[in-house]
């Protein structure tokens, strides 16, 4: 039996969210291919994978999970959808497989003491929303300037879109700005009423919390109603190429959160081009390599691979790790700048270090702006304000535990 670590890849290359799901899924696959080609796997353990199409639908996602979960050598699942994450959160403890939900999923699952198997690494919707408010405050010249301002949240009417609301309400209370909530029914192809409301309310800023076709439609409607694009701030799921390419000049000035850079300069991307695409084994088209969502896929997969590597350090190099062991690896990630540079991710993202209590590891993000042709990253990094988020996470996690009649993990549990 060959030593193989198996990565189940849930993806959606079809359906309403396919334009965004595809580059993401390609990045994930290409990274695995590259590791196999360049390093021969992790310490000699080959990486294998299987893709399963969810179409962003929960029941199909669950079916995929059930199909792939008992595959030998399963490491972790990345559900790629908020709805599937909810369903799997209930299932993984029994199966002992960790979930990695980079930049999405449940905000409260940052609390590793309550959510042993969930890893919302690098950010949740709460940290994202928090950073957006920070950057707006900075633009205005301080939090005190937010007083009396009006900020509208145009959001995908689903748990994904609703997650940031509690945080924004908290911030609104703190700084005295007015928060307008404008839901858009999924998938978001008809937004006329929403933008009429924007026109009526004349908010100073619009936060865009969309996914898939909703983003480009929102930008087009903004153009059609004459709302200034540079007053619009999107979450990191509203800041990729498919969201703006089609709008082109019309989206000029629009800002979005960036978890990562884009472009083909980073060494890891170069490696992918060299070891995978040059060999004709690329999953998608070559010019998509290095795009925003593609790079995010690469990062997710890198975290998975590093978690396995970390686990091997403890449980035995060159062995196939179990889900439980990989979970430990995810909980003890220590990707400092040096490590990132070595991995070829210099400048792509900030260092990450997770712990038993903190399953997020990093809450840093930047703002990028669309100049009509491409995304331009600003150099200011923001970190979500712990003072605000921590208590909220704690209360949320407590409620979850109470509902489930579960206990917080004992400190001893963190050692296993």
């Amino acid at each position: 039996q060959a030593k193989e670590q198996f990565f189940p890849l849930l993806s959606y290359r079809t359906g309403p969210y396919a334009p965004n799901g595809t580059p993401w899924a390609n990045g994930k696959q290409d990274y695995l291919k590259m590791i196999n080609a360049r390093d021969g796997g992790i310490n000699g353990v080959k990486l294998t994978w299987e893709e399963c199409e969810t179409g962003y639908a929960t029941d199909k996602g669950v079916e995929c999970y059930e199909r792939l979960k008992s595959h030998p050598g399963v490491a972790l699942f990345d559900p790629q959808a908020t709805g599937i994450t909810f369903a799997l959160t209930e299932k993984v403890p029994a199966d002992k497989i960790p979930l990695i939900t980079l930049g999405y999923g449940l905000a409260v699952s940052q609390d590793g003491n309550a959510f042993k198997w969930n890893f919302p690494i690098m950010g949740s919707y709460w940290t994202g929303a928090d950073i957006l408010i920070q950057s707006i405050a900075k633009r205005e010249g301080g939090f005190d300037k937010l007083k009396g301002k009006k900020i509208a949240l145009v959001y995908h009417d689903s748990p994904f879109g609703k997650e940031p609301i509690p945080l924004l309400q908290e911030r609104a209370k703190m700084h005295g700005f007015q928060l307008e909530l404008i839901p858009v029914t999924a998938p978001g192809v008809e937004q006329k009423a929403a933008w009429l409301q924007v026109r009526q309310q004349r908010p100073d800023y619009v936060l865009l919390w969309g996914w898939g076709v909703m983003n480009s439609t929102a930008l087009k409607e903004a153009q059609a109603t004459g709302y200034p694009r540079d007053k619009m701030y999107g979450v990191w799921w509203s800041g990729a190429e498919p969201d703006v390419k089609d709008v082109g000049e019309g989206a000029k000035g629009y800002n979005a959160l960036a978890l990562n850079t884009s472009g083909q300069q980073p060494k890891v991307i170069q490696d992918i081009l060299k070891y995978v695409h040059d060999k004709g084994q690329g999953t998608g088209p070559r010019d998509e390599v290095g795009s925003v969502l593609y790079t995010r896929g690469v990062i997710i997969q890198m975290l998975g691979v590093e978690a396995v590597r970390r686990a091997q350090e403890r449980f035995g190099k060159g062995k196939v790790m179990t889900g439980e062991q990989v979970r430990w690896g995810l909980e003890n990630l220590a990707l400092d700048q040096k490590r990132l540079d070595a991995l070829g991710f210099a400048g792509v993202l900030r260092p990450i270090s997770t712990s038993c209590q903190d399953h997020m590891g990093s809450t840093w993000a930047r703002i990028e702006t669309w100049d009509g042709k491409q995304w331009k990253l600003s150099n200011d990094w923001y970190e979500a304000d712990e003072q605000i988020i921590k208590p909220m996470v704690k209360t949320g996690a407590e409620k979850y535990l109470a509902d489930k009649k579960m206990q917080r993990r004992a400190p001893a549990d963190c050692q296993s």
Partner: protein
Amino acid sequence: MLYRENGQFKTSYRADQQIFPILQDRWAMLALLVVAYVAVPLLASPYLFPAVLIPFLIMALAALGVNILVGYCGQISLGSGAFMAVGAYGAYNFFVRIPGMPLIAAVILGGLCAMLFGILFGLPSLRVKGLYLAVATLAAQFFADWMFLRIKWLTNDSSSGSVSVSALQVFGFSLESDAAKYWFCLTVLVLTALLAKNLVRGAIGREWMAIRDMDVAAAVIGIRPMYAKLTAFAVSSFIVGMAGALWAFVYLGAWEPAAFSVEQSFRLLFMVIIGGLGSITGAFFGAAFIVVLPIFLTNVLPGFTALFGLHIDTAGLDHAQVMVFGALIVWFLVVEPHGLARLWATGKQKLRLWPFPH
């Protein structure tokens, strides 16, 4: 000539009124139950249970409910997803708000919530008919979608609108294992199917079918359209609501309103039409077709194309799967417009004549 009823004389109307008047059918049914209760759990893999069998059972239950409304009473409904959602969230609220609420009671109470909702949205059927009604029932669907996203109380104040349940128990037995879940769903399904069968072959069932086939004539022989339609809505949405509760509690464990989206409504309608309108067995065939076939295709197509040396990527696979699925629907309809259940009945009829052609 193994399968024939000749020589089986009924000595009373009671005997003739049995669900399976033919001896062979009774044995076959018994065998089927034994297989379902004993053999399947022994043979099924850890994948089959949660990914195929349980969704099949729950969807068959839902299709059964929809079939009562659409197939028996002729009121085409596209709001079944909403009834499922009401059942699920209704059961959820009873389950989490009332300490010690047993699962079965919660599921039934969820069904009752769905029943009230169903009656409410069934009221327009007194005036609106056919496709107009079908489209109008979408109002229920979108309203329910909205309601569970917007009214926080219904989701126990969860910030995102998604909720979860765990530690399910039935009469003190834990429902953690897949086999236990399977048995539970199977039992609910078998019992409901039995009750539903009794209803449709009894007086109320005849009222429904009369309304479906010719409502003016039905009124003339003293059937009250209002009563017949509203009971159909009530019974149907009760069953669909229970299915919704099971889908949420047993299959998903955690869910958001999108789990019961309009696609779900459509899928349920497909099931009853493909399976056979106005047939209890049809619900089973339909659920099998719609739930199992895509999964089967996804599992089989890559191997199949590999035979020809073709590699097919996930997207291509999904497209191929969807196309084959669509083509099969059309093909089955061309072969037998009245659904798989009718195809099955025709097959049985042929078997009865066998080895003679006619």
